């Protein structure tokens, strides 16, 4: 599938989902401090990976857009709730080329908006029973429950590492954290949920675990690489922001393993400072060290290995299914995840 077609499908499914999101946001007070803000992050136009994967997986297994839409809406609402809270936790300045919510509003308001989005994300799941029946709806509800649990556990791991300035992590630690924080909710559950809906519960969702895990890992590592080397306008966030935030990326973990004692001490000292006291010059020094020690190359290679493994899983699972646009779309997404520049 041509990248342009894949992108147009992402855009279309993203737009369908956004329309659904608007439908589920109450049109009532308090608008200024809550409901208008709930629209903000979804309206900024994210990539739409999660709802698109869910819809494409559903259609590949014989379902329709309509069948998957409520679940896609729920996934995207919950994703945006995570982002708002994540931005507060990371003290991030920009999201999709605009100031983060807590920056233009305040932390208390932003946290409350995130809470509201989490709750709003539940109602589409309840509505699923009208379209899909009780059994499938309950199964999807448990999928979402597991997804959110894994995500908060992963986030807890990373926040804890940063709080305690943990510096002796290895690749396994990183992969575990990413599995929990990113993969379940970015790829594994969207694919699983779509297939459950499309097949009316006949497909065993566990078959997508490795595919979604490899995809999600490739996606996250690429995202972390872009945070260091992308064009800021395209990427939509401050470049090098992850270093300033002390995010335990694969590059930072690799650097801490490979750097000399003096360098490691310098990095640790930098990471022990409160985020707002960390200086850009020092972050640039760490980025330079990452380049010197091959940390970025290591991360790029790992992302490629993961994407390769994801492709193998994809062909294993999907080659027996009839060809269709949505099936090709999922394949294209895998390639796009490591080929993208934003």
């Amino acid at each position, binding site marked *: 599938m041509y990248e342009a077609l894949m992108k147009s499908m992402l855009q279309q499914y993203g737009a369908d989902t956004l329309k659904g999101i608007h439908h589920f946001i109450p049109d009532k007070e308090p608008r200024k401090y809550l409901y208008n803000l709930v629209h903000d992050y979804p309206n900024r136009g994210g990539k739409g990976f999660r709802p698109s994967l869910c819809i494409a997986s559903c259609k590949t297994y014989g379902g329709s857009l309509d069948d998957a839409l409520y679940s896609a809406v729920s996934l995207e609402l919950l994703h945006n709730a995570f982002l708002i809270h994540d931005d507060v936790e990371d003290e991030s300045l920009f999201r999709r080329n605009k100031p983060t919510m807590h920056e233009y509003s305040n932390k208390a308001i932003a946290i409350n908006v995130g809470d509201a989005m989490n709750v709003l994300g539940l109602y589409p799941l309840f509505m699923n029973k009208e379209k899909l029946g009780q059994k499938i709806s309950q199964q999807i509800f448990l999928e979402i429950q597991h997804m959110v649990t894994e995500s908060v556990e992963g986030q807890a791991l990373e926040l804890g590492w940063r709080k305690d300035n943990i510096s002796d992590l290895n690749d396994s630690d990183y992969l575990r954290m990413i599995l929990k924080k990113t993969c379940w909710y970015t790829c594994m559950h969207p694919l699983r949920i779509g297939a459950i809906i499309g097949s009316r519960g006949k497909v065993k969702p566990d078959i997508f675990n490795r595919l979604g*895990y490899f995809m999600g890992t490739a996606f996250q590592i690429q995202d972390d690489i872009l945070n260091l080397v992308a064009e800021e306008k395209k990427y939509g966030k401050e470049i090098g922001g992850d270093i300033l935030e002390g995010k335990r990326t694969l590059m930072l973990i690799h650097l801490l393993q490979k750097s000399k004692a003096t360098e490691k001490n310098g990095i640790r000292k930098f990471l022990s400072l409160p985020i707002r006291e960390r200086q850009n010059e020092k972050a640039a020094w760490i980025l330079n060290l990452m380049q010197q020690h091959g940390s970025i190359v290591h991360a790029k290679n*790992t992302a490629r290995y993961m994407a390769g493994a994801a492709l193998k899983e994809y062909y294993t699972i999907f080659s027996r299914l009839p060809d269709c646009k949505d099936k090709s779309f999922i394949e294209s997404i895998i390639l796009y995840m490591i080929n993208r520049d934003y």
Partner: protein
Amino acid sequence: MREGKANDAKNKQPKGSSLAGDLFDALNPNDLLSNAQKVINTAVNVLEEEIAAGILAAKKIEKKVIDVDEIRDNPEDLMNRIRRDTHEAVDLFMDAIAAISKQLGLLSTTIVKETENVHKATPAANEKNREAIAAVIEHEEPLQPGQAVTLYMSVADDTATKSVKIQLQKTDFCGPLQQKILSKNWHIKPAAFILKRDEAKEITIHIKLPANCKAGRYNALLYDPLNPSVRTVIGIEVL
């Protein structure tokens, strides 16, 4: 199994996609312990550990919210619950096995992960029949003669108050028309181990089908003669 799948997958990859080709090349060096292999193996181990941990945690929660005594008394009701909710099936099955094991004072339980398809044996109303319950692990897809697969399972005993010694033994695979796949064609690792209290031990089952293997459905038994409730049926289908 993953190697087999991987090879199948490679054969099915589309031509003309250079990026996809590059990605596959990165995964198929001559050196089996290449960086790619190491990274993927590490990743897979992490995934499987996490899934096993999730199953155990869910099981513990399930035990808190269901009346285990009632389940022991009415296994048919348990099976109805299993049928009602496939998502919880593995956890509830674990509870059934654990509850029965506790009554018999025996070790038990198999958690089946990822590659398996868990089929429930029918629990009977009395203890004699309960002894007949065994977990079943089936490979998801039919296999070709000569193909090698790896299955995984975990053994845990949350009723044990002390460590238990487990010594697994295996039978031949029996198939249609008295066809057999000899036990030398499959291996378990580790076959003997000490299972500590609250520990889940992962077992790898590696099966290499003979090239002249006849088509049909085959079953073998994995069991511990000293712990009669530890028994698992391994099922495969050969094309």
